[in-house]
């Protein structure tokens, strides 16, 4: 009988501990997500690069669209 009571107590105790363990496991990934996102947020992304001559062939159609777009912006700046 004693053995049965001790076994029941052990089982109840282990169930309680297992429950607490599950809670900790659920919180882990959320905390980890916050840490990783915060680390990303703190990165100062600032590198500046100026346009270089392209090694690709000049595409007259692309150039023509860019010239048209620029003309509209110049027009707008003058207004």
């Amino acid at each position, binding site marked *: 009988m004693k053995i049965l009571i001790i076994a029941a107590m052990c089982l109840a105790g282990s169930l309680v501990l297992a429950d607490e363990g599950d809670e900790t496991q659920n919180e882990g990934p959320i905390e980890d997500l916050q840490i990783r996102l915060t680390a990303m947020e703190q990165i100062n*992304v600032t*590198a500046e*690069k100026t*346009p270089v001559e392209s090694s690709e062939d000049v595409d007259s159609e692309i150039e023509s669209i860019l010239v048209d777009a620029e003309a509209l912006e110049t027009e707008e700046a003058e207004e």
Partner: protein
Amino acid sequence: MRRQAMLRPGAWALLLVSATASANYSFDSPGDYLAEATAWPAWAQNLERHTSERDAIRRCLQEESACSGKLKSLRTVLVKGAALDRDRQLRLVNRYINKRRYRVDRRQTSLSVVPGGEAELRNHWSTLLEFLKRGGDCEDYAVAKYFLLRELGFPAEDMRVLVTYEKSVRDYHAVLAVRRDNGSSWLLESDDTIVKGNHRRYRFIYALNEAGIWDHAE
């Protein structure tokens, strides 16, 4: 040495190809997926602001007289660019956006990922129209290219704003990564180049698009 000499020429070629491929950015790294885009409040807010601006862009596309300010040149790029093939659309968008003025973000208070709080942050995410009006720094160039290519019909799942650490300039830098039909990734740079392979000079840090956030840091 003896073991190396035993490898067939084909095996060497395979090793070389895999070593090169691993240096390139891959959209197929499910282990790097971190969270939905909404988990980053400042980025989610930027997406919302752009959604409200899209109405103005759509109205301008339908009716030229509805265009004002930078929308006029944007309309020209979208209408005339629609007739180009995908490769040339990428070149057009890269050149058009890179013409903008570079401007360093001022330190300002933004929504933070820290729960319930705001924080003083350097990175301000601009929308396409905000960037066309005021210019911005490298992440704004990448974001503007992303939104502009979306208007040209590029799917969200094939594009990511990619933050890298670039060894040659020793600084954090953002580019737009675009997945091409053959599975390769092209990086649209702010110096007008499109890096189609050999991404060795970059260390990939994280990436964002409308759907999610990817953490590439080891």
